[in-house]
């Protein structure tokens, strides 16, 4: 298949893996930022192809995983209200809040619908003018443009029954929070290719310089991931620390300016709480004041971001690369995809789910 087979080609994979072995003279700790990369690495066994001593830490780039419990609880409260159609991407439905998940709300009679795009939710708002249609807008820079577009269109059409419950987060501030932590073990980053396709490479240039850490924009197929690792280790071995793009087929240096213009119009940068990582300044997006009529938090009087209650789940340590999933005492016992303690076990992109699915035995 075009754009797929050539990046999963076994011979190509072996060639880059051999090149990585040739240039590596000492142990290195790299972090892949995106959960999609984590799954590719574990599913295809890419980490097994690396020289001993090269360790991949799994980063915070899973939108489901970093959505704080407090916001999930807000989603559950809205979805339980009569007259509301609550729309969400599929993998948010099983994420536990304090006491239950969206599937349970649906089973109890709430009108919870799985959609594939915020524009599907917008269409529901048009079809049901007598109902409040709320879309759960989670994700990184990647999903922000489509979510922004839905609000922009709703405002233009005067669809006052459409709103977003926003829990958008931004990648560079989270990477900076990791780098600034005294516990940080990360020596090089594989930045998330899809995020950079929207926001570009430029936000990472000052980070690479300030913290003396190589940052390589990386894709998601086996050959993409290995190319990112190769460029990152090459920089480390040569003592360089810059931002490089190893995913040129999807990422331009300035990203997608049209998409970013839409995001800048609809959203404004705010502080956000990340599940397991706490409050990070300027790390999220909220609706700009001029779109407050489409803000579910305002419409339903929810108040500010409620923060993160204490939990038995160590996903915070996992999302910061300080622990691996199988080092958690609850992994595979008290915490499974059927009864997850935390979001990292739920999401398709969560590190715990990847380990459970591909590495359990």
């Amino acid at each position: 298949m075009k754009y797929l087979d050539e990046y999963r080609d076994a011979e190509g994979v072996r060639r880059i893996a051999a090149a990585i072995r040739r240039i590596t003279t000492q142990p290195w700790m790299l972090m892949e930022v995106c959960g999609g990369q984590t799954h590719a690495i574990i599913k295809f066994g890419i980490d097994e192809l690396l020289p001993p001593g090269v360790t991949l830490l799994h980063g915070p780039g899973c939108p489901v995983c970093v959505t704080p419990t407090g916001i999930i609880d807000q989603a559950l409260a809205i979805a339980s209200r009569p007259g509301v159609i609550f729309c969400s991407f599929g993998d948010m439905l099983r994420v536990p809040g304090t006491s239950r998940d969206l599937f349970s709300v649906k089973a109890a009679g709430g009108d919870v619908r799985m959609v594939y795009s915020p524009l599907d939710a917008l269409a529901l708002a048009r079809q049901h003018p007598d109902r409040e249609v709320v879309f759960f807008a989670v994700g990184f820079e990647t999903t922000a443009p489509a979510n922004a577009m839905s609000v922009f269109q709703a405002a233009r059409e005067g669809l006052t029954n459409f709103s977003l419950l926003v829990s958008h987060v931004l990648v560079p501030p989270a990477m900076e929070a990791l780098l600034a932590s005294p516990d940080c073990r990360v020596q090089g980053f594989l930045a998330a290719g899809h995020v950079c396709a929207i926001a570009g490479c430029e936000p990472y240039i000052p980070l690479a310089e300030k913290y003396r850490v190589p940052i390589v924009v990386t894709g998601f197929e086996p050959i993409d991931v290995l190319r990112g690792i190769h460029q990152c280790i090459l920089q480390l071995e040569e003592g360089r620390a810059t931002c490089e793009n190893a995913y040129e087929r999807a990422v331009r240096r300035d990203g997608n300016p049209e998409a970013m213009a839409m995001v800048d119009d609809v959203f404004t940068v705010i502080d956000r709480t990340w599940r397991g990582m706490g409050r990070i300044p300027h790390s999220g997006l909220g609706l700009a004041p001029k779109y407050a009529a489409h803000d579910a938090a305002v419409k339903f009087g929810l108040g500010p971001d409620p923060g993160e209650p204490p939990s038995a789940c160590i996903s915070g340590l996992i999302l910061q690369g300080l622990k691996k999933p199988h080092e958690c005492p609850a992994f595979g016992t008290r915490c499974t995809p059927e009864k997850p303690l935390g979001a990292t076990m739920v999401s398709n992109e969560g590190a715990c789910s990847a380990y459970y699915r591909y590495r359990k035995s």
Partner: protein
Amino acid sequence: MNTCPIPLADYPVVTLAHGGGGSMMRRLIRDLFAATFGPDSLQSHQDSALLDLPPGRVAFTTDSFVVKPLFFPGGDIGSLAIHGTVNDLAMAGATPLYLSCAMILEEGLPMETLWRVAQSMKQAADAAGVQIVTGDTKVVDKGKGDGLFITTSGVGVLEFEGETGPGAIRPGDAILVNGDIARHGMAILAARAELALESPIDSDSTPLNHAVHALFDAGLDIHALRDATRGGVASAVIELARDSRHDLTLTEAAIPVREDTRGACELLGLDPLYVANEGRFVCFIHPDHAERALDLLRTHFPDTTPARIGTVTEGRTGRVTLTSPFGARRPLDLLSGEQLPRIC
């Protein structure tokens, strides 16, 4: 094309009276179901069908169908309800003969829809060589059903000697699949989500009994059959591995997945190995007979690519391992529920 025998001007939709046991229900059964399913169907006007079965052990199975949308590329709930039960009988090594058909209709279902579904069931039954001999109809209030639910049960007779099933699986067995996988699940998902695919993916829904009959008729040493419906090919082989306590390896590169199916799976973040099929089965067979079986499968499924996808190994732990194209090995396990499409 025939027209619906229930005058649409009088009854354009199903009403509660159509399930009320009175003349309207009798008319629905007589003019729509009996007229469609043929003269031998619902034949006795008694409370039970009376059947003459050839000698041999009888296989008996049942399945319910709740698919949404009712019509999708490559099939509909009617053909699915026939194929599902026919295939369950075929997987037991039985020749399917007779089916029952129970329908739960939601008040307000267009009569034309019911008529199309009934016609599709008749066509599917004819293609599979089975008869619908008894049935039931209930109507539920509007909003209490999803248009139409169908339950079919079926009986068949085992013509061939020898046990098949997990207990017959042996180390060295070849594992075959009769064609490209994951098309039914992706056809439904794409139709449901109105994904704007370049060309719609058509379901693989098809009767398997003729092909299975041909395999047995050729005297091939078949050890186990399992249709790869919900949970996909992965769940089918994992269940057989667990039940037999034999270890299996599957070769990822050998598992046929059509390009458009693979593209849709990638788009939604789904693993085709776990996506549902309605016309695919895995066959565990003596390795010396694998090539002959594949040749037979190719003649029965000319539009697709039957393939050998794996082997039963010596271990007795009941584990399934998948070998990736670059040699990495990973365990395959049952998923806890349905796969959920990802965010980005």
